[in-house]
């Protein structure tokens, strides 16, 4: 019997289905806890001339009002991943740089009163000109955000792999394309929540927040608070209402509320509202990519050149610019392209700071790369699928070292494409397109081939430094995962791991992994994923991001369970008078494989370690609790030529879809969508399928609906769910998934990350289908009806679609 690979139902569900979830806002707070309301800048750029708290302080129930000057006295600016003079405190004190930037905090007996008083805090601003468009921000005459910077650009950094110059000089043809990936977010339904209490006895802070990691932000917070890390006790809750990368960005508010508690002398609770969340929580960065390919006449890509201009908004908060480098080693995607040149440019504008959202860096890269593959086909009058297939990395090449350093673990991309198009699926798509076009309707087919990274190498961000600067700073690399399996005196098993809850069903998957090793039922395993930095195992890599669960945390759990198993085998072997090699774990028993009647119950064997240390084999420690640390050796630091293996596992996705355009209204109707996945071994296909469908919906949202819009003065326009279009059940079309499994040789479970891939593939696939339907090169996302009509008016029906 194997438990791995089975669609076990979720342990998490009963509580969540019956209203007994334990989300951060549900947790009772200490008596006397104050409610916080954050006052935010109404300007995109301006100087703060005066903050007058007096009228607000007179409101009954108001405890205090905190401004930037208060915060600056007792804290330091946040550390950055780059050494640049971009300083940010938890509150703006002299200058605001984006609409919605926190300027003051009102603390009152309840939130209603805090908001009453907020209107009475008199803040005087002197507005400054704002710059919103990233290209305009690069202009020498643009308003400058940070005085210490010579402009609004950080970098740029140029990378060359192979000999792209020669390839471009000799190529039969050069195909060029510019894409613009919009700024958007995936807006978890639960907003940020922070409860913070300053403890004056030892000068420590006790915080509960729905923070998701990476815990590399913990030292950033501690430094800002001017305390060693052991005085910032950060806890994460038992349940969290989604994250999708966004809940990294609660960390400045953790610092803010910790400081507020210290100033107020009371515990403080802050619950972000939706307007605040959309306005100022976080988003993915918008990116402009100028992509060029040197190609042969048969569509073979000899070299690729990418200029990536990424807009991080007003501040570059650690660990930014993550999205610009997360895919770096895999910048050639699923294709065997030996020559590569990349220019990365970071630009700051008067928008809210951008950070990680699900898929970070992938959607931006693949929109450029996959649109470029389609353009190559169009230019050469080839079938786009032929161009894709001609360039896919061949199956014999694995493990495959990509030009920029990614070490692709396993795959058979050609077979995945073949399986996806088989059984008449592609034929049907083509027939539907032919029939629609014959009837004068606008129908297009799109493809996207995507390599999906799993578990980031913590050293990837240091690629942004020059090799010399890296040498000085010391090499950074690895991705540490930690887990503990504990067995109590009667054999009950509980597990902790360094992966906070965000709703993916990790408790269930972990219980499968542990039960598999110990011959138990998953229901027997208790899993606790609340993290307490004061008591639990954690590292800077801990967290729930970059698909690090299956290649990382689950492996640490597996290793810890194996250690428990090995120890128990030795304990049982002594009592059963057999060799430890002869011990097996099954049906709740620890027994001799050769004579199954010679058995101990699991609880009895485990109890020995607690009750009877004297019966243990010589030299064995009493107790039954094992912590494992997993840090795969493949995650090396960037080398002297800037090659970096950015992730541990690399799954493969091949998407194809058919869309029909309503040429009168401009609406895009997704007629058929297929998504083929190879994520190695699936631990729980039901959970895997759930992740894929969720990512599909978010990818579709990015392609057709969601966008953060600012007006020319930097006033945010998408601040509520009437103006920021989250698709409902009415908008998400059906989608067919397919799977194959080429296990990863680099992890003991063979499983790869899979939850971000469709966020990366779907925008590109839909854009390609729309381009095919309209015969248009320039597809702007989200492809809203007015934009589609604009595109149609540029390419009237007379023109033959591509």
């Amino acid at each position, binding site marked *: 019997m194997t438990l791995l690979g089975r669609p076990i139902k979720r342990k998490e569900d009963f509580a969540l*289905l*019956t*209203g007994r979830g334990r*989300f951060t806002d549900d947790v009772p707070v200490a008596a006397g806890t104050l409610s916080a309301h954050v006052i935010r800048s109404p300007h995109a750029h301006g100087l703060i001339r005066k903050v007058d708290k007096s009228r607000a302080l007179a409101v009954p129930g108001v405890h205090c009002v905190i401004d930037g000057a208060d915060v600056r006295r007792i804290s330091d600016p946040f550390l950055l991943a780059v050494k640049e003079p971009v300083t940010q405190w938890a509150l703006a004190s002299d200058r605001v740089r984006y609409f919605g930037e926190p300027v003051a905090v009102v603390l009152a007996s309840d939130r209603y009163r805090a908001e009453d008083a907020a209107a009475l805090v008199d803040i005087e601003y002197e507005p400054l000109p704002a710059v919103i468009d990233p290209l305009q921000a690069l202009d020498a005459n643009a308003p400058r955000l940070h005085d210490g910077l010579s402009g609004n650009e950080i970098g740029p950094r140029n990378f060359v792999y192979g000999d792209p110059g020669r390839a471009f000089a000799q190529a039969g043809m050069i195909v060029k394309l510019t894409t613009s990936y919009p700024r958007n977010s995936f807006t978890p339904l639960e907003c940020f929540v922070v409860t913070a209490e300053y403890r004056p006895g030892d000068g420590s802070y006790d915080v509960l927040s729905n923070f998701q990691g990476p815990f590399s932000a913990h030292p950033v917070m501690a430094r800002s608070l001017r305390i060693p890390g052991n005085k910032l006790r950060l806890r994460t809750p038992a349940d969290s209402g989604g994250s999708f990368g966004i809940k990294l960005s609660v960390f400045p508010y953790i610092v803010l509320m910790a400081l507020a508690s210290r100033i107020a002398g009371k515990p403080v609770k802050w619950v972000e509202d939706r307007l605040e969340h959309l306005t100022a929580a976080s988003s993915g960065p918008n990116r402009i990519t100028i992509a060029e390919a040197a190609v042969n006449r048969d569509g073979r890509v000899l070299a690729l050149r990418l200029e990536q201009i990424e807009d991080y908004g007003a501040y570059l908060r650690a660990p930014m610019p993550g999205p610009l480098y997360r895919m770096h080693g895999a910048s050639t995607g699923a294709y065997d392209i030996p020559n590569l040149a990349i220019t990365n440019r970071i630009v700051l504008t008067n928008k809210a700071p951008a950070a990680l959202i699900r898929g970070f860096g992938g959607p931006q890269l693949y929109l450029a790369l996959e649109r470029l593959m389609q353009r190559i086909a169009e230019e050469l009058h080839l079938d786009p699928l032929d161009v894709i297939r001609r360039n896919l990395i061949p199956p014999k090449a694995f493990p495959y070292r990509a030009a920029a350093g990614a070490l692709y673990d396993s795959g058979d991309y050609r077979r995945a494409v073949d399986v996806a198009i088989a059984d008449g699926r592609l034929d049907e798509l083509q027939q539907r397109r032919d029939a629609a076009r014959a009837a004068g309707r606008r129908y297009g087919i799109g493809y996207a081939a995507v390599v999906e990274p799993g578990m980031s190498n913590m050293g990837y961000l240091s690629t942004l430094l020059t090799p010399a600067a890296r040498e000085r700073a010391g090499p950074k690399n690895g991705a540490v995962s930690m887990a503990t399996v504990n067995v109590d005196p009667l054999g009950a098993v509980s597990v902790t791991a360094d992966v906070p809850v965000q709703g993916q069903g990790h408790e269930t998957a972990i219980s499968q992994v542990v039960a598999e090793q110990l011959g138990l039922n998953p229901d027997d395993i208790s899993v606790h994923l609340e993290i307490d930095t004061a008591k639990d195992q954690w590292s800077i890599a801990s967290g729930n991001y970059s698909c690090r669960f299956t290649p990382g945390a689950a492996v640490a759990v597996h290793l810890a369970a194996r250690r428990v198993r090995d120890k128990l085998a030795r304990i049982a072997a002594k009592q059963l008078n057999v060799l430890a090699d002869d011990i097996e774990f099954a049906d709740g028993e620890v027994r001799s494989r050769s004579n199954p009647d010679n058995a101990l119950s699991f609880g009895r064997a485990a109890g020995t370690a607690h009750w009877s240390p004297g019966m243990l084999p010589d030299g064995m420690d009493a107790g039954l609790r094992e912590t494992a640390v997993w840090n795969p050796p493949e995650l090396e630091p960037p080398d002297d030529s800037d090659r970096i293996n950015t992730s541990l596992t690399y799954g493969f996705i091949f998407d194809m879809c058919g869309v029909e355009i309503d040429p009168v209204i401009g609406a895009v109707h997704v007629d058929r969508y297929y998504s083929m996945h190879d994520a190695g071994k699936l631990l729980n296909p039901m959970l895997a399928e759930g992740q894929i469908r*969720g990512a599909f919906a978010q990818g579709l949202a990015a392609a057709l609906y969601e966008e953060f819009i600012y007006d020319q003065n930097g006033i945010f326009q998408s601040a509520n769910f009437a103006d920021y279009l*989250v698709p409902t*059940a009415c908008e998400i079309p059906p989608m067919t998934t397919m799977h194959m499994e080429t296990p990863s040789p680099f992890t003991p479970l063979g499983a790869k990350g899979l939850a971000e891939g469709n966020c990366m593939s779907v925008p590109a696939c839909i854009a390609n289908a729309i381009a095919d339907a309209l015969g248009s090169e320039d597809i702007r996302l989200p492809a809203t009806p007015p934009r589609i009509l604009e595109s149609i008016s540029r390419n009237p029906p007379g023109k033959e679609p591509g």
Partner: protein
Amino acid sequence: MSTISVEVNGERHTAEVEDRTLLVHFLRDHLRLTGTHIGCDTSQCGACVVHLNGKAVKSCTMFAVQADGDSILTIEGLSRDGKLHPVQAAFQEHHGLQCGFCTPGMIMTAVDLLARHAQPDEALIRRELEGNFCRCTGYLNIIKAIQAASRAV
């Protein structure tokens, strides 16, 4: 301040509330029924849906005083004797939830829809869910769960 008397999940509560207290805050903060969630504040997302006199309403868009004398059912009152309501059971069976934050509102909406439409087809279910956001599942499994529940109810 007003004194209100409300029946919640079959139990009568009399409470003193500020007139401006939203129903959702009354449920969460006064009665400690934290299963009802707040997701958008502007009445789009449906995480706060409860039944008011048997009909689904958004409890973030109503004041507690407005419910004086009324009967309210929240997610906590749906299952009886530790046994899941058929809609809840179907959500588990079909993996219709991930983070679980939208789930209480989604389920209360689904129960309301099944009360009005005994055998809804897929298109009707999608339409009826137009006021409930889920950011995790992509909706398909939710739709499947509601269809399955309609056969079980």
